């Protein structure tokens, strides 16, 4: 999907290309646009227009108090000024800052979200594995469990007293008074969230598996002839060959992590407990909209998030040429 983006990025239409269309070409264009029209209309109405409106709101004063929308007046850059000095976004002595909370959690969750599916996919791709279809199916299966149900399930597993995870830790020899209290402990709440997300690896695992299956066997044979060890083969052959798949998952994970908020919303009721550690940026954003009903400042937070994601995504695409290898294309 992403390679498509990279490839076609240069092919913007020029005016002359429209002029040089033949009669037949014009008919094809009309028909094509007709078929695309549901999406084009939807994009304009449900995406582009609201986006621009959000941008516009961010320069206003716009609040709902007691169900009544305030009269909008122009606020200039006041909302952005507020954003850059907001202790709920950036840390101060009383709050860890929702932006840094998001980044910190992302740094813990991202490696797990990439390497765990990759490791399982490598195992699934092992030629010695019996019944690969069965295992593949079973590792994917929890992905279909509805999100809210999965959270309560894992919440139960992570219950400090009755959950199986702490029971397992005690069984393995951990002292009863040392077991983590997971979602109630600043130290453990991020690992707890990561564990709660483990059931979501199914999709990434299958995507990586299809990448692994696409590596030509001749490459492995050649590596064997050259006397490469298993580890070397993985890093010198497998990894470059599946780097597009990893890149794809990496970009999607990062974009997803910046918007992370449903788990803290459900698990810690969106309060940020314990100690503001689960007050994620996107959570703060939605609370600004739906709880504090400050439409203008919420819009500012939303656009800031959009810009951050845009910058990070573009940076990632920029790094792609150094480590993502597309077969059939010379590496520059």
């Amino acid at each position: 999907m992403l390679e498509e983006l990279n490839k076609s990025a240069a092919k913007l239409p020029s005016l002359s290309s429209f002029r040089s269309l033949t009669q037949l070409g014009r008919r094809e264009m009309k028909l094509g646009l007709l078929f695309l029209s549901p999406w084009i209309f939807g994009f304009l109405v449900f995406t582009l227009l609201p986006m621009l409106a959000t941008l516009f709101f961010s320069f206003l004063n716009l609040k709902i108090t007691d169900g009544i929308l305030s009269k909008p007046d122009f606020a200039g850059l006041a909302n952005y000024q507020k954003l850059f000095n907001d202790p709920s976004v950036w840390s101060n002595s009383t709050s860890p800052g929702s932006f840094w909370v998001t980044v910190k959690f992302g740094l813990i969750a991202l490696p797990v979200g990439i390497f765990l599916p990759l490791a399982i996919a490598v195992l699934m791709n092992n030629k010695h594995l019996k019944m690969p279809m069965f295992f593949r199916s079973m590792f994917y299966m929890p992905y279909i469990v509805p999100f809210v149900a999965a959270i309560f399930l894992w919440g139960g597993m992570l219950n400090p007293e009755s959950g199986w995870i702490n029971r397992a830790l005690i069984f393995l020899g951990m002292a009863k008074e040392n077991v983590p209290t997971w979602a109630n402990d600043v130290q453990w709440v991020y690992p707890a969230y990561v564990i709660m997300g483990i059931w979501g690896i199914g999709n990434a695992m299958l995507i990586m598996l299809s990448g692994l299956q696409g590596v030509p066997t001749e490459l492995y044979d050649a590596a064997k002839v050259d006397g490469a060890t298993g580890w070397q083969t993985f890093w010198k052959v497998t990894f470059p060959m599946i780097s597009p798949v990893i890149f794809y998952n990496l970009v999607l994970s990062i974009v997803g992590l910046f918007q992370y908020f449903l788990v803290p919303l459900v698990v810690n009721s969106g309060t940020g407990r314990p100690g503001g550690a689960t007050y994620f940026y996107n959570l703060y954003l939605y609370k600004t909209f739906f709880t504090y009903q400050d439409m203008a400042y919420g819009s500012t937070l939303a656009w800031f998030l959009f810009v951050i994601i845009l910058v990070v995504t573009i940076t990632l695409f920029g790094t792609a040429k150094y480590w993502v290898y597309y077969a059939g294309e010379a590496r520059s």
Partner: protein
Amino acid sequence: MKKSLSPKFLKGVNIVFVTSLAIALLVIFLAPFLFMVFTSLKTQGQISQLGAPIWPAKPTSFEYNGKNIEVYKVPMSACAGADPNDTTIKNLGIAKKGRQESTFVDPANIAAGEFKCKVSWRALERPWKFSPTWDNYKQAWNTIPGTFPKLMWNTTFYAIMTEIGVLISCTLVAYGFARFRFPGRDFLFIILIATIFLPGAVTIVPTYTFYQKIGWLGTWLPLIVPTFFANAYDVFLLRQYFMTLPRELDEAAMIDGAGPLTVLWRVIIPQSYPALMAVTVFHIVYAWNDYFGPLIFLSTARDKWPISVALSTFNGIYGQQPQLIQAASLMTLLAPLLLFVLAQRFFVQGIVITGVEK
């Protein structure tokens, strides 16, 4: 040493090693299902009791002199008239509790009568007997906000209506991207893909305010109508699949005078069942899973809540009763689980079609 082992033996060792590793990981990975089933079959009493087993059980007791008396594990050496070196532990019914000394009776040998043992009954463990409680399901079924069948119906209705929207619109749009060549098409395709990276927050306020203005809040419309205008994931999946279909059949049909809609309906769609099925099953899972959309658009309309919203509200009320939460969660995930069992190959296929590298 390696030389003495036959390659066949080594291969066998590898198979055993790799497959056992996969089994071990899978057991850990799926253990929460067992946790859920076990917890949902426990009584509240067992959950709060220390030392209770992890499987649904109740402490053993037995009928004695018309009373139900509790059974404890008693070291026989502490009992009157027993050999002090006796190391056996027997399950005995307690007839009279005492701090220093209690009176017991052997359920296996009631005729032998009561006897005393010098043990503190509080320090004794109780034997447990497997005993599932089905009441939790009944209680969850009856107390979840909205009735359970209604919630199921709401979720199904939501899934079906949006499914229709997704299938119609995404097929049309994917066909447009896959089969028509014109300047600007690739640019539009980039925009389509880019919408995947767009944070939802950046469009929510104007759309929410707009829906409020036109009176759509508390109705299904904000959730259903946008699905009729295609989405990037499903268009991408279908487009990838349509591109793999040979154009010769399209062209033959066109020579016979078929218009583009006829080609789509008669030529493309009949060849695309795997992709359409993949979109269908992915969407059902998505709809069953959707929480935030219904939460904000239907928050005032309780009668339209899907199961996800009701379940989280239920957790807010009964959070201290894990057995009810697990029973309700289990009932919630049965439908998607069944779908997966019946249609698992379409899930896998869908991801293969997306192919990523194409």
